């Protein structure tokens, strides 16, 4: 039965921004060519629509019929070697002026070659549906469809399910096309443009008789939840148990349906979306500068990294130069955040594995609190910082900050040695971690894993070193890897990463230049408060920025940074207005969590808990 959740359209939320003529506009086609696009053109000829560089990324438009062949070619060709499908997303272009034969839906794929250090974006039109969708999911519009890439890249599984769930694109040949984030009986696809943002009317009245109050609570579902289905591929012959969504060791509201033979895991079907908050839809209704505050709340354990990833993407589209000092401050913040996030990972991982062992939780959070104190010093917040803004950072560092940070850098290596003394050689710790959750290099690449999950399987890749941003090329640090591929290997990688972060912090503190802490470009970055008192021009800039925001030229761009959990990517599609036309977040935990089924098969039930901890998920980022 479809749910009665008719979304409300609120005029004050969905008002278009004031646009110059010619806006909104679709993204322009790429220009120029590179070795890779030349090679692809040689092989596929007329099936390639346009190919070249767009916003500095290699972009190839391919006809839908050849999508699968091209993906297989990208992977197999010795001159290309794109081993990994990083991300799948889509855009509904129905609010853009299109030519007659342009399709409404486009699917967009991000490929990565680790051996050749190349990134490639693939764009393809989705064919309009000829007949109603077979999986009658109560949707009146016919779903567009496109070939699934799961046969080529295993990691396409979940991203494609996400696109199906939120955008309503059918993937032909997908083995398991179910909703992944929304409840299974949800009546519509939220990211389609004709679907309003939803939510409730905000009552601006104090009279109870006002009809505005009638919409209050209208969004709540009927209390009975949908009857649980047996996930495909599972057999009632085995025992099927339910872990979560309220379970102490699933690190949030994750639900795992675990099929057990005795105490051995046969398969796992994760059920996501219990924390789905509609970030991507919300972004379409917020100005660019206003979405920074939302990024904090995605991976809430590394808010600074989220801020940075988003800001870098928009800044690149704007072509904005960031002052030297702001870049170094950003590096300091993001590295501190990496340590804080790893400390929390360590604390919860140890708590999960050793059951009641609270001591490491207390020790690790003791050091984490010091980092949060430093954050509080610069921006007043502990967790949701919003300190890194488009154009630089919010405020300059306070005077006492560097002294405190130096003290932290002095103390921290000793603390890491303390943790390692408690764990690294401890027989219990080794017994629970060594050989558990093994994933091979090839599987890791095929599944699109990133970050410590991939480095723990021997792939020597770090975006900070290999595709540097924010001046990371100027720092000396090592990228720890492990060939073990198990939980213990990933533990060693993360511990070493904390040490390397301290090394980067030390260098950043030593080389912190003086100068501007945010861009002087008044069209993007607000003028300092003191300037408003004396300069009319500053006042106008401030007013324009706060009421209208700034416009980003039409186009799209994907940019990934090395977050603490893996590659944190932001994809922004701009139509030239002051709000993103489409924003997609590639959360590393989402792709990394996909491996839970693979790495847990054949292991004991208690190892599932170890594996969840070792993947290091944050549900805010998985569900978005």
């Amino acid at each position, binding site marked *: 039965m479809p749910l009665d959740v008719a979304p409300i359209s609120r005029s004050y939320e969905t008002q278009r921004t004031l646009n110059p003529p010619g806006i909104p506009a679709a993204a322009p086609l790429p220009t120029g060519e590179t070795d890779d696009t030349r090679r692809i053109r040689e092989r596929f000829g007329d099936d390639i629509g346009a190919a070249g560089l767009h916003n500095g990324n290699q972009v190839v438009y391919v006809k839908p019929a050849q999508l699968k062949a091209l993906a297989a070619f990208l992977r197999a060709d010795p001159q290309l070697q794109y081993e990994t499908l990083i991300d799948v997303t889509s855009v509904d272009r129905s609010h853009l002026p299109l030519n007659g034969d342009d399709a409404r839906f486009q699917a967009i794929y991000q490929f990565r070659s680790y051996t050749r250090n190349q990134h490639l974006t693939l764009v393809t039109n989705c064919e309009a549906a000829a007949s109603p969708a077979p999986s009658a999911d109560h949707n009146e519009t016919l779903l567009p469809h496109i070939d699934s890439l799961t046969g080529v890249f295993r990691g396409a599984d979940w991203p494609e399910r996400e696109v199906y769930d939120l955008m309503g694109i059918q993937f032909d040949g997908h083995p398991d096309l179910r909703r992944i984030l929304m409840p299974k009986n949800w009546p519509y696809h939220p990211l389609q443009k004709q679907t309003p*943002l939803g939510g*409730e009317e905000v009552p601006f009245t104090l009279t109870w008789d006002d009809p505005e109050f009638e919409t209050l*609570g209208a969004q709540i579902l009927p209390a009975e*939840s949908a009857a649980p289905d047996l996930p495909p591929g599972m057999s009632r012959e085995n025992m099927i148990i339910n872990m979560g*969504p309220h379970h102490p060791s699933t690190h949030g509201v994750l639900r795992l349906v675990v099929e057990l033979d005795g105490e051995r895991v046969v398969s796992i079907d994760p059920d996501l979306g219990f924390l*789905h*908050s509609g970030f991507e839809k919300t972004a379409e209704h917020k100005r660019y500068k206003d979405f920074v505050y939302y990024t904090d709340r995605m991976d809430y354990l590394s808010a600074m990294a989220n801020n940075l990833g988003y800001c870098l993407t928009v800044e690149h589209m704007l072509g904005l130069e960031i002052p030297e000092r702001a870049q170094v401050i950003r590096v300091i913040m993001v590295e501190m955040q990496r340590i804080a996030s790893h400390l929390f990972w360590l604390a919860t991982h140890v708590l999960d594995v050793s059951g009641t062992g609270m001591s490491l939780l207390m020790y690790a959070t003791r050091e984490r609190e010091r980092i949060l104190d430093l954050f509080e010093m610069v921006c007043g917040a*502990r*967790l949701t910082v919003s300190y890194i803004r488009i154009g630089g950072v919010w405020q300059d560092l306070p005077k006492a900050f560097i002294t405190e940070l130096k003290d932290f850098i002095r103390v921290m290596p000793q603390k890491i040695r303390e943790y390692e003394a408690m764990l690294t050689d401890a027989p219990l710790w080794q017994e629970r971690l060594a050989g558990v959750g093994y994933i091979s290099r090839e599987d890791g690449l095929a599944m699109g894993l990133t970050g410590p999950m991939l480095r723990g399987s021997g792939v020597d890749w770090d975006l900070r070193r290999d595709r540097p941003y924010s001046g990371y090329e100027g720092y000396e640090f090592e990228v720890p890897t492990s060939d073990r591929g198990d939980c213990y290997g990933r533990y060693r990688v993360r511990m070493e990463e904390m040490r390397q972060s301290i090394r980067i912090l030390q260098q950043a503190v030593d080389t912190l230049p003086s100068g501007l802490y945010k861009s002087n470009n008044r069209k993007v970055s607000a003028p300092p408060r003191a300037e408003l008192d004396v300069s009319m021009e500053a006042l106008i800039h401030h007013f324009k920025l706060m009421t209208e925001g700034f416009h980003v030229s039409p186009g799209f761009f994907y940019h990934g940074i090395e977050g603490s959990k893996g590659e944190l990517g932001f994809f922004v599609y701009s139509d030239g207005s002051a709000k993103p036309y489409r924003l997609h977040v590639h959360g590393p935990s989402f792709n990394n969590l996909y491996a839970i089924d693979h790495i847990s098969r054949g292991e004991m039930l208690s190892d599932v808990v170890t594996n969840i901890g070792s993947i290091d998920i944050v549900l805010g980022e998985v569900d978005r």
Partner: protein
Amino acid sequence: MGLEQKVPEGILTTTLDSVINWGRANSTWPLLFGLACCAMEMIATGTARHDIARYGSELFRASPRQADLMIVSGRVSNKMAPVIKRIYDQMSAPKWVIAMGICASAGGPFNNYAIIQGVDKIIPVDVYVPGCPPRPESLLYALDKLREKQARESISADRLSQAEEQLAIEEIIPLGA
């Protein structure tokens, strides 16, 4: 006067209500249950610096049967709402609810298709804590407020049966009038 003169020295008398409320207020066990960002601050409240053990609430119980207090720490999605309702129903009375943070209180910045605009639409809330997320000190203050509330309660009319009584009275009065 009265009883105090009869009992030997060193024995105090009090009411049953104050003894029980004293016990309840000093050992309110929260449910080990985190939703989003606020859950991180909830954990921080439990660690050494903020030390929720001073309130007798350090024992986060994973089973709703053993918990007295549900701290709704984060945004409640449409998919999660029935689960929260069920967990709340599984907790045995007396039970209390703290809506931690603006999302649990009123939806916060997420006024969209996915998020319930305040957990009080599905379960009754005793204390609302503002903040995004609230600092650990705010959560401790909420526990203080909860204690004040607990101190006013009486076992003679349990919270839930009190509500039922209220309902029954309302039904009866119009008939008699």
